């Protein structure tokens, strides 16, 4: 691995985004708008907003980075630039780390804006610090990126890649406990939820929001999350093949 190449990949991904300002604007503005929408949907019951707000703020980056990375990496696969890179003297980890760095940077901006709007303007209340929520959001963005990179190997077209969002992310969002507490779900679904990474992302956010700190269970959640990111990246690295049929 080489820092020079990792930074080159990260710089390139950010330059591509720089040329696509509309996507960047959507990535940054849409989560803030949705949180605002939510705040006024629950206008009569602000306590509900306080319960689901932090979870949503922390999970947005996961969803959007999943989409952005699955499509960016799919383009690399289909246009031959990935094949070219893999004939060059670089390590696959350089590509993964470069993507991770770029998307973590983007996620940081996204998380900062949506947190500022939610906690600053909309009066979202959380026991923990908004900074902790933001930090978890960046971690979640990395998970989204790693999952997006992995599923891009199974998509032949951008249409398919987009469809992986509802297929991979929506069930996790339904099962993680954000919409209905997991204790109220059917037993089989609770077991399924325990196997899905977003459950741990959501739990860590809830602990910060409700208890003010991660605590030992929350720390465990973060460890599981880190493991899930590494596993998804390792599986993603396997799909970056130097030799193809």
């Amino acid at each position, binding site marked *: 691995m080489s820092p020079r190449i990792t930074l*080159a990949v990260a710089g390139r991904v950010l330059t591509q985004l720089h040329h696509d300002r509309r996507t960047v604007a959507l990535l940054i503005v849409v989560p803030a708008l949705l949180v605002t929408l939510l705040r006024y949907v629950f206008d009569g019951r602000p306590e509900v907003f306080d319960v689901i707000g932090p979870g949503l703020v922390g999970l947005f980056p996961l969803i959007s980075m999943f989409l952005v990375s699955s499509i960016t990496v799919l383009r690399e696969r289909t246009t031959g*630039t990935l094949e070219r890179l893999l*004939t060059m003297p670089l390590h696959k980890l350089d590509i993964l780390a470069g993507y991770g760095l770029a998307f973590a940077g983007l996620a940081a901006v996204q998380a900062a804006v949506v947190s500022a709007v939610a906690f600053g303007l909309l009066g979202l209340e959380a026991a923990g610090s908004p900074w902790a929520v933001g930090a978890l959001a960046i971690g979640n963005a990395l998970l989204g990126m790693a999952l997006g990179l992995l599923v891009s190997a199974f998509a032949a077209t951008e249409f398919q890649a987009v469809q992986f969002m509802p297929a991979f992310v929506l069930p996790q969002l339904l099962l993680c406990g954000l919409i209905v507490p997991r204790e109220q779900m059917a037993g089989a679904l609770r077991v399924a939820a325990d196997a899905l990474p977003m459950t741990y992302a959501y739990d860590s956010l809830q602990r910060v929001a409700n208890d003010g700190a991660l605590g030992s269970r929350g720390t465990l959640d973060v460890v599981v999350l880190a493991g899930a990111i590494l596993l998804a990246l390792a599986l993603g690295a396997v799909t970056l093949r130097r030799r193809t049929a």
Partner: protein
Amino acid sequence: MTDAIAIKGLRVRRGGHDVVRVPALDVQAGAVTGLMGPSGCGKTTLMRSIVGVQRVAAGQVTVLGHPAGSAALRARVGYMTQAPSVYGDLTVRENLRFYARVLGAPLSRVDEVIDAVRVPARARQLVRDLSGGERARVSLAAVLLGEPEVLILDEPTVGLDPLLRLELWRLFAGLAERGATLLVSSHSLEEARHCDRLLLMRDGELLVADTPGGLSRRTGRENLEDAFVELVSRREEVAA
């Protein structure tokens, strides 16, 4: 004469049958070798095998003394794919600066290669807005960045105007003079005259490996297109 590329018993299978069968092939170092043949004859698959990105069923491909695709070769072999493998959403310079950083080439190379392939590098124009021929030349420029010893170029001159094509062939000859080994594919036999050596391919097999002059003598035809037809018909007679 030394050989930069040596192939023994290469077989590539796809969809249940052999798409490339090359019992033996040597590509001479410091020369421009043309890989000619109709589209679909296996040129790209053979090139991919030499670069080491093709999964092969059997055989050995050795480049500069190393097995094709080995890590030691990655800085020494440059591969230009047939479809331009450049980022459409970056400018020409941004593309080349990125590849230069990956290859560890000095950034001053960027302007040198832009000049060498004569591609317009307007400050704000994205590569996706260039013509197909221009995009291909950006892709070629990226190969030149690292000054590789072996260049595998898949149809670099397709769709270019005759003057530009000539300039590129001169560029290739210049690289070979300085010791580089070039394998350049084309489906147009007209371009064969620019090559030091020729490989003619058809249906996944090599018909002949010779110099353009040798090919004419062998077939008694001055025109390379006629020589190709002559070779194919002789082969079919033998097969019948």
